[in-house]
């Protein structure tokens, strides 16, 4: 009986991480999809070429976010590193961060017609602990571009 209790206590943080982490991730993806539908009419173009229309207003907009992975997935990714191949858990994290950053950028310019010269940058801001082990493996994503509004008198 004691062994069982000890095991449960030992695995409790991991179990909480799995359950809470996956619920949070699912909710986050749901809200991302909802907001992406809201901004479906605001295109985000990585080139400088724009339609030949007079532009009334242009301004710099940016959005950023810091995301990290849950404890259990980080452990899985560590295992994955031994054999190599696709690391799905990290793919999910990066996807979440990018889409969230884009949405935050779009939320700052609701009246605009388009965002041009869109750029995105990702950087790791991890802290290395004892023995080179990564204590906090998180990434920062920043998305920025120029929001333009066409003049209406046409």
């Amino acid at each position, binding site marked *: 009986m004691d062994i069982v209790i000890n095991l449960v206590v030992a695995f409790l*943080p991991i179990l*909480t*991480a799995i359950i*809470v*982490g996956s619920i*949070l*991730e699912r909710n*986050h993806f749901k809200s991302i999809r909802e907001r992406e539908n809201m901004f479906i009419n605001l295109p985000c173009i990585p080139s*400088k070429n*724009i339609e030949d229309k*007079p*532009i*009334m207003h*242009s*301004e*710099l907009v*940016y959005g*950023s*976010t*810091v*995301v*990290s*992975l*849950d*404890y259990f*997935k980080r452990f899985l990714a560590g295992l994955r590193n031994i054999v190599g191949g696709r690391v799905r858990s990290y793919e999910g*994290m990066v996807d979440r961060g990018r889409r*969230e950053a884009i949405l935050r950028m779009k939320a700052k310019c609701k009246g605009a017609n388009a965002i*041009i*010269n869109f*750029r995105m*940058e990702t*950087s*790791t*801001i*991890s*802290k*290395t602990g004892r023995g080179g082990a990564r*204590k*906090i493996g*998180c990434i*920062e994503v*920043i998305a*920025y*571009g*120029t929001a*333009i509004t066409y003049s209406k008198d046409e």
Partner: protein
Amino acid sequence: MILTNIDSVPGKEIVEHYGLVSGSTVRAKHVGRDIMASLKNIVGGELKGYTELLNDSRQEAMKRMISQAEELGANAIINIRFSTSSVAQGAAELYAYGTAIKITGVE
């Protein structure tokens, strides 16, 4: 001050060019925030404390860039780029740079 990251200000004409202006800031993480972030790190997801910290620092870097441009007498900055790098353990450098110019039609 007009800020864009394309190489002109649409609808305006560039009359003078002042060269590169930049602003940077190095921020270390707060101990309290660090503890909160490590707790949040167990379940994963967004680390709000860090997002806020980096946003504040980026605004500071932009403010420095803008004041540098104002000193030169510019009224717009074009071609703005951002970059982030971790310079030391637990500290991040945020850097913003662009080209300061003077345009017509803005006082």
